[in-house]
């Protein structure tokens, strides 16, 4: 029920509060009423035909970096992370 679909905005129709998003090659029209102004190239999360939030791609990259950080130490067989021993 709370399924969300991420997509990239490829067309914008501000006067209708509508955008076309593309998700893995599939396009759909969505309402942008709940998120205000959007631009082509931005990423949004869509639920039941409505974009419910913009996706912060920079933040997602940060998360991926964090995972890399955590797993780097996991790979070294270290259960402790730097700072643990202070």
């Amino acid at each position: 029920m709370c399924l969300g679909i991420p997509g990239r905005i490829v067309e914008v129709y501000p006067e209708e509060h509508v955008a076309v998003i593309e998700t893995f090659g599939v396009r759909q029209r969505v309402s942008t009423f709940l998120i205000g102004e959007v631009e082509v190239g931005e990423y949004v999360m869509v639920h039941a035909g409505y974009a419910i939030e913009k996706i912060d791609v920079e933040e997602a990259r940060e998360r991926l970096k964090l995972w890399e950080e955590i797993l780097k130490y996991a790979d070294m067989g270290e259960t402790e992370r730097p700072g643990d021993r202070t």
Partner: protein
Amino acid sequence: MQIWERLRDPATGRKLAGRVRELAARVCDRLGRRLVFMEVCGTHTMAISRSGIRSLLRDYLELRSGPGCPVCVTDQADIDRMIALARLEGVVVGTFGDMLRVPGSSSSLERERALGAQVKIFYSPAEAVAWAAANPSQQMVFLGVGFETTAPGVALSIKEAEQKGISNYSVYVSHKLIPPALKALLADPENRLDGFLLPGHVSTIIGRRAYLFLEEYGMPAVIAGFEPNEILDAVRELLEMLLEGKAEVRNAYSHVVREEGNLRAQKLLSEVFTVCDVPWRGFGCIPQSGLRLREELAAFDAARRFELPPVESRVPPGCACGEILKGKLTPKDCPLFARACHPTHPVGPCMVSSEGACAAYYRYEREV
């Protein structure tokens, strides 16, 4: 979409899983028992079952499903009234697909449709309003089922009907709110949970701050995304907190969920709905856990617009959906599971919905 492919990357998932198992082992050692985390969201339930995360972590921790499937927590009397609406002359019921096969006390929307009732499945409430505008001689009643994620779209559909004067559109409002359900779970002394995995898309609307009350209960909680790697990452955060002896509300889905949530959506909800006490399957009445239409929009309330016969609701004997939704039992504890109750003949809603715990366990976690 490169970023999603990386969020989904199986190699990263395997490493994350290894890290999570290692942390879980340490926390178990320290506490001298297995841990219990509840995934509150039905979409998480399905993802956790499908990806095998539940069984992967079984030695150290149990991921128990909670009341996070809107269809499943809908009270039997509400289901019966929705079915009664479908039987009315001149009424066309519009609904999300999940509701179609949910068994009421004596019928289901699917069965009523087979008997001649008009039931239409819509992907979005916007489609239901458009249908009403195109078919002015028929009454379109949309079934407003869903949590904070879904309610804003339904609110918009009502506003649109009001603005455009579409008088043959109404909504049977059965929307529910997650934080009061968490309070109800925490108020039950039998529920010994070690942490909550919080629903990512509900949180998108209400924001991380809406859960700060959990800290008063000393309950660690993490907002999680829906890719298996994102779920593992959130479990990792919960374990880290247990190791550090902390009970915070953390956001492991911060690329989608903001501190304060979606303010536009919140404003819209308060313009269209007010908060009220409503019954949940299994829980009974939970204070201030539901939405109803504001008085000035009463004309769009299907429950008031149509005269419905009184319903005599009963839950099927033996069905454990209520206890499963409270996290007291797992689907495998239900005597009907995979015997009298299966996807082709569902006895309770948790076996019907695409995100019901019983459906998830039947499909992905049955030992045959």
